[in-house]
């Protein structure tokens, strides 16, 4: 299935939840999804016979600056051997995105990492806590406006 067909099928099934798409890109065509519908869309993509995206290759946070952060999902179907990229975007004040942990277990740690680095709050994640940074770390290091603190627990940070 080519990305254009995927987009048409998703648009027909989810309507407003499918916001826009860039399908002519030679590298990775992507579809933008509303952050409060990601789980439904993911479930559809995994279970629909024409899609069968059984593997979530990569889930990552992104900082789009100007107060917008996002999550990027790279999906792949081992059966049909096709790929698609999903994107979703939220404001930093209310960074709520639906978790897809229930669809693909691999999202568990990857969502924790996106939370750890970008502060994306995944609604419905069973265990959303920091994974790479210490539990008491303040701020989200991969955001572009992150300021490295001078001290962490009394230790000087910049070397």
């Amino acid at each position, binding site marked *: 299935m080519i990305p254009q067909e995927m987009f048409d099928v998703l648009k027909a099934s989810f309507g407003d939840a499918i916001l826009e798409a860039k399908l002519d*890109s030679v*590298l*990775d065509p992507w579809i933008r999804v509303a952050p409060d519908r990601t789980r439904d869309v993911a479930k559809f993509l995994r279970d629909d016979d024409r899609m069968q995206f*059984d*593997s*979530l*290759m*990569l889930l*990552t946070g*992104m*900082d789009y600056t100007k107060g917008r952060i996002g999550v*990027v999902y*790279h999906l792949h179907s*081992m059966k049909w*051997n096709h790929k698609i*990229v999903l994107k979703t975007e939220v404001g930093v004040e209310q960074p709520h995105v639906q978790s897809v942990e229930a669809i*693909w*277990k*691999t999202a*568990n*740690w*990857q969502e924790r990492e996106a939370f750890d*680095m970008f502060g994306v709050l995944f609604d419905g994640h069973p265990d959303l806590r*920091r*994974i*790479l*940074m*210490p539990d008491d770390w303040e701020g989200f*290091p*991969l955001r572009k406006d992150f300021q490295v603190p001078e001290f962490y627990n009394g230790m000087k940070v910049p070397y």
Partner: protein
Amino acid sequence: MDVTVTEKKEGTVGDVDTGRRPATIPGLGRALRSEEMVINMGPQHPSTHGVLRLELIVDGEIVVDVIPHIGYLHRCFEKHAEQMSNYQQVIPYVDRLDYVAAMSNEFGYVIAMEKLLKIKVPERVEYIRVIMAEFSRIVSHLIALGTYGLDMGAFTPFLYCMRDREHVLDIFEETCGARLLYNYMWIGGLSHDVQPNFQEKTRAFCEYFRPKIVELNELLSYNKIFVERTAGVGVLPPEVAINYGVSGPTLRGSGVKWDLRKNDPYSIYDRFTFEIPVGKGIKGEVGDCWDRYMVRVQEMEQSVNIIAQAVEQLPEGDVQSAIPKRIRPEAGEVYVRTETPKGDLGFYIVSDGTQSPYRVKVRPPCFINLSALPAVCRGAMIADVVAVLGSIDIVLGEIDR
């Protein structure tokens, strides 16, 4: 009158019936009180292969849950990459992800960058890269198998593996001067051409190494004690493995015939004949520790096959002719994954049209494979956690980045 003090369902761990029932004290007719205990394994435990802490929740000898705690070796790779003043500078950092197979990491990064820059590299470069990547697979698997034997109580195979690894490291050293962290593959080419005696040395290695795999099999793979410790232990069913995103030998050990070199070919892998070994459950069940171990042994044979073919076809040419003077990709993004010894290593690179990367995200195979550890270990014995962890073959440098 029998009074059961414990509140939880007796004799079960998760959904598994362990067959254990609380002991009753003769004469008293009352069950012994039992409760779960939390044990820390690591961060300095030798079998965790680095600084990994596992919080084991155990019911006697049986593991109820495992909670891995990672991040002790976090070096802000992705943050560093964004701070670099050009794309080439990221390569030494990429080396330090999976430090026992640095060539494979570089390979993934440079082909992602070449896809973004639309560079076609010379044939000679492609061949040398494939040979180096396969060498690095052999090196990585030798360490994985050797230390796995060590975890299981077999010391000698480790020394044999280290001895064979030296031969490959010598070739690396002659080629680029470094033994562990190479900075050898550059965007569009290589830092050095190989030495004039490279082909000869590589052929000699292939000839030397094939019998050594047989030796390793005799020494460790079919050793009765080793088979008892690994066969039927830590079974990872294929559908669970796919759902957890597990990749590489860990996935193939579960019987899934999935290898990016065949299924999503990159570079020039479609030109070589080789097999994809999968777990068949010869000694126990499909997807047990022994299967994952055996897949690695067989993959080394296949790597030797690829190297032997590539070295005969190695064309002449200039390895630096395609290196761009200035690396400034158009705004855009690319996601490329390659088959490294540990699994699918992906690079998601976003460019904003300037000379330094906007975002470099790594899909670390060990990180994803480790996330399946709790699913495999629930219901196993404490000693088997070591067996499962070793068979997943993790490198903390890549998990923590």
